[in-house]
């Protein structure tokens, strides 16, 4: 058998076999990636061996022995590092959720105002956007934290705010809720949600089949008030408040006992993140609205829709297709930017876990990997949710 023929037939099989042709480059890529990561892992383990460092996750079960300023779950220094991780993660999710909530509201309002025909309104929105998106976030964070911190009064000088809370340099002290039969109240809330969804569906069917309109908003609102009220009157639910109370700790040091304190770090971080990200969302909203043809609005007007209805029924559904994908990016940015918290002492995942815990255990590789994986999972969850939402609101071509 001569070599020339063998090669030829090999090339022949390769060219002929489309499956192989498609499969081979991918196979090589996978092998290369595995090899590269394997090399890094091997290299790291050899070097760690040389320096007398071992690798493992057993430390997660050990006692953390440090305290955390602000936690959504029960935590003390005798809890484990795994628990400290959870505290940090929940704090990150909390500030990201608050940030996304306010950034979306401010962004939509500013984005729409940017297109207003009122000179004052659109100029103010324009200035807001240009100022806030062009200053580095970290500086804004320091501004909100230190400037605002200096403006807030000491506990003993604080005036009562909204009749029930105190806004001081040490935090915003609000009454704590003390519930009795909380579960019955929660059931009533679930019942409200279900019935509102039912009413909305019924109203849509009515509109489609008979052209009648139900006052959905009024019905929903009254449901929202009546059902929980019934749970109080009949279900035996009671709610009392634990009001914060000024106490003196020394000649000039005062604090509050009772109530719940919202730390200034959380407020500053949430404010900085939402005001910064809102500018980008506002621009996404503006782009989305401008992307809807002028004729659409005119057609809606000629059908007799009010400007509000035009925006809600004609412009927004089309604009959202353009708005959602770039806004998803902004949500992801906001979540990742929340890691700047470490600069102003908000105990987020980076400060608690990739900061204190890493320092106390010295397990840099393990902790940084876990932190990276966590942010990756958070971001991917947001992406998946937004993609689902995007698909849901996409115009269904019939």
């Amino acid at each position, binding site marked *: 058998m001569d070599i020339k023929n063998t090669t030829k037939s090999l090339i022949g099989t390769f060219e002929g076999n489309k499956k192989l042709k498609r499969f081979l480059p991918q196979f090589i890529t996978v092998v290369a990636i595995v090899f590269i990561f394997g090399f890094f892992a091997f290299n790291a383990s050899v070097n760690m061996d040389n*320096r007398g460092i071992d690798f493992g996750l057993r430390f997660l079960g050990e006692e953390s022995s*440090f*305290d955390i300023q602000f936690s959504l779950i029960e935590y003390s220094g005798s809890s484990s590092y795994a628990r400290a991780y959870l505290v940090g993660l929940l704090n990150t999710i909390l500030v990201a959720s608050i940030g996304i909530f306010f950034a979306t509201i401010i962004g939509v309002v500013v984005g729409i105002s940017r297109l207003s025909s009122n000179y004052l309104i659109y100029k103010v929105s324009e200035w807001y956007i240009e100022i806030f998106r062009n200053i580095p976030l970290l500086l804004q964070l320091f501004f909100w934290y230190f400037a605002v911190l200096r403006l807030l009064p000491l506990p003993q000088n604080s005036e009562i705010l909204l009749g029930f809370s105190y806004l001081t340099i040490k935090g915003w002290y609000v009454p704590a809720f003390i519930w009795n039969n909380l579960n019955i109240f929660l059931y009533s809330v679930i019942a409200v949600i279900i019935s509102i969804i039912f009413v909305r569906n019924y109203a849509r069917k009515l509109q489609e089949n008979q052209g009648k309109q139900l006052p959905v908003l009024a019905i929903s609102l009254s449901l929202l008030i009546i059902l929980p009220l019934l749970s109080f009157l009949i279900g035996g639910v009671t709610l009392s408040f634990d009001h914060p109370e000024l106490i003196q700790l*020394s*000649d000039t040091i005062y604090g509050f006992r009772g109530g719940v304190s919202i730390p*200034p770090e959380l407020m500053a971080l949430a404010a900085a993140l939402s005001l910064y990200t809102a500018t980008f969302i506002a621009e996404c909203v503006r782009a989305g609205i401008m992307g809807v043809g002028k004729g659409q609005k005119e057609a809606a007007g000629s059908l007799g829709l009010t400007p509000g209805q035009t925006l809600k029924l004609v412009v927004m559904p089309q604009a959202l297709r353009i708005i959602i994908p770039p806004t998803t990016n902004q949500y992801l940015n906001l979540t990742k930017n929340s890691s700047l918290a470490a600069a102003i*002492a908000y105990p987020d995942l980076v400060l608690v876990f990739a900061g*204190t815990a*890493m*320092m106390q255990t010295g397990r840099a590789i393990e902790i940084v990997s876990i932190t990276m994986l966590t942010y990756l999972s958070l971001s991917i969850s947001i992406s998946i949710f937004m993609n689902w939402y995007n698909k849901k609101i996409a115009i269904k071509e019939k």
Partner: protein
Amino acid sequence: MKRTLKSLFSFLAVFAVVFSIGTEAMAAKKSKTLKNTIKKDTVRCGVSQGLPGFSNADASNNWTGVDVDVCRAVAAAVLGDANKVTFYPLSAKERFTALTSGEIDILSRNTTWTLSRDADIGLTFVGVNFYDGQGFMVRKDSGITSTSQFKSGISACTNIGTTTELNMRDFFNSKGISYEPVAFEKADEVVAAYDAGRCDTYTTDKSGLAAQRTKMKDPDAHIVLPETISKEPLGPVVRQGDNVWEDIVRWSLNVMIEAEEYGITSSNASSMKSSENPAIKRLVGSEGELGAALGLGNDWSYNIITQVGNYGESYKRNIADPGILPNRGPNQLWTKGGLLYVPPAR
């Protein structure tokens, strides 16, 4: 003739190269870190991001402080020039990773020597260059003069990534006081937040409190409480596994302390060469072969003393004269009632 001369020269050149490689290899044969330091002609030293008295840079990036002087001493011993140091300002969080990953060769950054750090994370502590303890600072007008007056609800500002966080918990828990810890990544933000009134007390090592107090808007409005709640022996750290380098750093520090004990200063070191006392003569390199044992030249300790000075000079220059801690307290020689007691250099 010309040819003979030429071949003689080339022979000499080759010999010189081989010889120089030979001596260098001898000196550095046991230590990779020493070899790298000589090759790079600089000591890579991790310091703080700015703590007056310990490691602080001025406007033209000249570093000063007692921690800085340890690195300068090593540079004087190994390279013969105390200025051949490259400083790497590190946060508390980054410091150990920078050392274990090989980015720096000495960590001289007011770092507390503890069992878990020494044993766990690939580090070796070589000695103590400052005996410290954790304390509290409060505003003078608060009327608090002792930690026994602390009450539940107090908020305390501090740095993350230090033993301070752990000591603080031990202290407040043992007294049954509930407190609010506010932990920042950088010292500047801790001071700013405390100064703004966010916290009632600021806690860290007492030397740090004294140093940061000088940075405040009105230093006289704050006092450091007398109680010390922990032992904080601060000292230089090296990577585990390079024993020769570890010895060099340890004895560079020890020489500074021993020089003070024998009254050798940067100004009188050269005249001490003709001293009667053999211990002094060994320290200034006119007797014995102490340098060779470390793989260094015999003038290593002389260079340290003349270029950096003894421990007392370093303390006076960096800590006492700027008014940070004029009283040496435990950082006095054992002969004068302090804790500084180093093994003999012989």
